[in-house]
């Protein structure tokens, strides 16, 4: 006799498609985001296939250009940005703060429908012939020269932006107004802090890209001419407005992953985080300083030299809170009780890859050095270390950590460890050679390339194949676990936190009795200060 939980409390399509339960909405997102990840991955595979040989012989240049554009659009706007916030954030924030739901459950469901609508626009653009502007939609190529479905794709991005905005709004209000009695700000789980910081970026940045792509559509469709050089318009203004959102968007991807890693590291060392307030505030610092650095995408654009210098300085500044986090995680492992379950393997993978990704970011922030590696494969490698090595590692780690809570089932730990290993190896094989390619000078978005770059490209494609297997495995064993996995206890990892105090899977309104919080999360040992200074 199964107890009533959010999964079996209501059956049929309508009980899912009209649900206002944050946990069910999280699962709706999980399914749709996984679908978009597969689509984006398919595009990536086509790109790597083309780059096996120097000559552009697998597909035409136009097709290739559409492939990397759709890869970028789908992965950035429909996978990476919503991934952790919309799936894990939606599922966990109300539980972690002891609430029954988010502040606006209907708005939450609406944001999923908006996401699907935006995704539909993008898929229509892809199926009706594709878009070839690059995910960055740079003018005047996108407004005047491109001969593809730019407006449809731009509307897809515009619409999806509102899904992000509504999600961020919901999280901010929920964290401010719905916390359980006694749950003060400094008792919040670090995941909630990171989601709060992410939400700030959602609401402050997303509107700017919404208006920017709207202007591109207006210029293309109505010949308005906001960025048109012939009217004295400035294509570089587009880049300013675009990156005002799109650089912070990178922090939308990485901040939630950092939050996940903070939780996992504490749970699998059975130890509270080292320097809680520094880790918490560094999330806010990254969110805020992250808004001041966008100009490093314009270092070679003809932006003024002094603006370049300023953006370089600010870009270095944003690295400091990231470094603080890495040092604090390392210090947390010190004298912990370390258990290398698959979630923790992902966390270790994250720390390693994010460290490389972050440190190579310094190369790009150093403005004189960036001139050479700007728009080369060095940049591609760097941001894939952040987005795939960082954000997706965090997402996978989070899924493995909270899967028993979400599904009520345990997955196969052995297969999970194998997948984590494959992903780590495959990832490095794919993207590390691209650093070398980039410094050699191979530009990004090249359909064909000089033959001396081939060896590294072949290595990269080989790695991508391993990576694909690594990503396919979890799909198999997670689905397997739903049907055949053993039932998960409330707290399979021996972790501490409100989400582990309620049954797996949780009941519809999460808590039968509103919890009263008396201390922070992840307190395992009796608190005693151990001086190491």
């Amino acid at each position, binding site marked *: 006799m199964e107890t009533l939980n959010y999964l079996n409390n209501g059956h049929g399509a309508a009980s899912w498609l009209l649900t206002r339960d944050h946990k069910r909405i999280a699962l709706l997102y999980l399914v749709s985001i996984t679908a978009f990840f597969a689509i984006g991955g398919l595009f990536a595979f086509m790109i790597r296939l083309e780059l096996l040989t120097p000559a552009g012989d697998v597909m035409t240049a136009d097709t290739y250009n559409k492939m990397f554009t759709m890869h970028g659009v789908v992965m950035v706007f429909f996978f990476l940005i919503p991934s952790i916030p919309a799936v894990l954030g939606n599922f966990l924030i109300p539980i972690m703060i002891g609430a029954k739901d988010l502040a606006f459950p209907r708005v939450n469901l609406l944001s999923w429908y908006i996401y699907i609508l935006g995704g539909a626009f993008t898929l229509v653009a892809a199926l009706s012939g594709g878009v070839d502007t690059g995910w960055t939609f740079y003018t005047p190529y996108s407004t005047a020269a491109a001969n593809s479905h730019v407006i449809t794709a731009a509307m897809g991005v515009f619409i999806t932006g509102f899904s992000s905005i509504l999600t961020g709004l919901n999280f901010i209000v929920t964290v*401010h107004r719905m916390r359980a009695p006694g749950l003060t700000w400094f008792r919040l789980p670090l995941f909630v802090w990171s989601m709060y910081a992410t939400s700030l970026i959602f609401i*402050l940045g997303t509107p*700017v890209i919404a208006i920017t792509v709207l202007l591109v559509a207006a210029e293309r469709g109505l010949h308005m001419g906001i960025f048109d050089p012939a009217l004295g318009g400035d294509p*570089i203004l587009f880049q*300013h407005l675009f990156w*005002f959102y799109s650089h912070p968007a990178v922090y939308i991807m990485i901040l939630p992953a950092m939050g996940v890693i903070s939780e996992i590291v504490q749970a699998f060392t059975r130890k509270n985080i080292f320097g809680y307030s520094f880790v918490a505030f560094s999330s806010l610092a990254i969110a805020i300083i992250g*808004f*001041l650095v*966008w*100009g490093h995408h*314009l270092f070679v654009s003809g*932006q*003024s*030299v*002094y*603006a370049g210098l*300023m953006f370089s300085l600010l870009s270095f500044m944003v690295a400091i809170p990231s470094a603080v986090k890495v040092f604090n995680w390392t210090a947390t492992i010190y004298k912990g009780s370390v258990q290398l379950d698959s979630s923790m393997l992902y966390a270790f993978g994250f720390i390693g890859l994010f460290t490389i990704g972050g440190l190579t970011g310094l190369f790009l922030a150093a403005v004189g050095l960036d001139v050479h590696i700007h728009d080369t494969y060095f940049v591609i490698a760097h941001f894939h270390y952040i987005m795939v090595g960082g954000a997706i590692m965090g997402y996978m780690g989070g899924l493995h950590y909270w899967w028993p809570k979400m599904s009520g089932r345990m997955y196969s730990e052995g297969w999970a460890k194998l997948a984590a290993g494959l992903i780590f190896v495959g990832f490095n094989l794919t993207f590390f050679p691209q650093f070398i390619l980039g410094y050699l000078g191979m530009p990004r978005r090249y359909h064909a390339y000089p033959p001396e770059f081939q060896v590294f490209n072949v290595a990269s494609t080989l790695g991508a194949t391993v990576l694909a297997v690594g990503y396919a495995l979890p799909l198999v064993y997670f689905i397997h676990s739903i049907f055949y996995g053993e039932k998960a206890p409330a707290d399979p990892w021996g972790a501490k936190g409100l989400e582990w105090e309620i049954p797996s899977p949780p009941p519809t309104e999460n808590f039968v009795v509103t919890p009263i919080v008396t201390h922070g999360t992840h307190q395992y040992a009796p608190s005693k200060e151990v001086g190491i200074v």
Partner: protein
Amino acid sequence: MAVAHHVAPKSMYYMVFGALIVGTLLTVGAAKVDMGPLNNVVMLAIACTKASLVILFFMHVRWSSRLTWVVAMAGFFWLLILFGVGLTDYLTRGWVPGTLR
């Protein structure tokens, strides 16, 4: 308990309304006086004052929680970040000898 919100007297609303109308007429009037670059300053000062009146009284921020203040201010502050940081490019173009605007 739910009647927690401050109920302002009608007379206050009428006074704010009067101030807003006066502000509008002042703006139109000021545009007809040549003050050089000051015209823009005066216009924006009046517009900001009018906006503040609407926010403080019509939108009840005057009686709202500190959080509402912070949220309202944050919006305008972020706008200034967009303008200010963006302008560092436009206002310094061509400063380095040999580079062009």
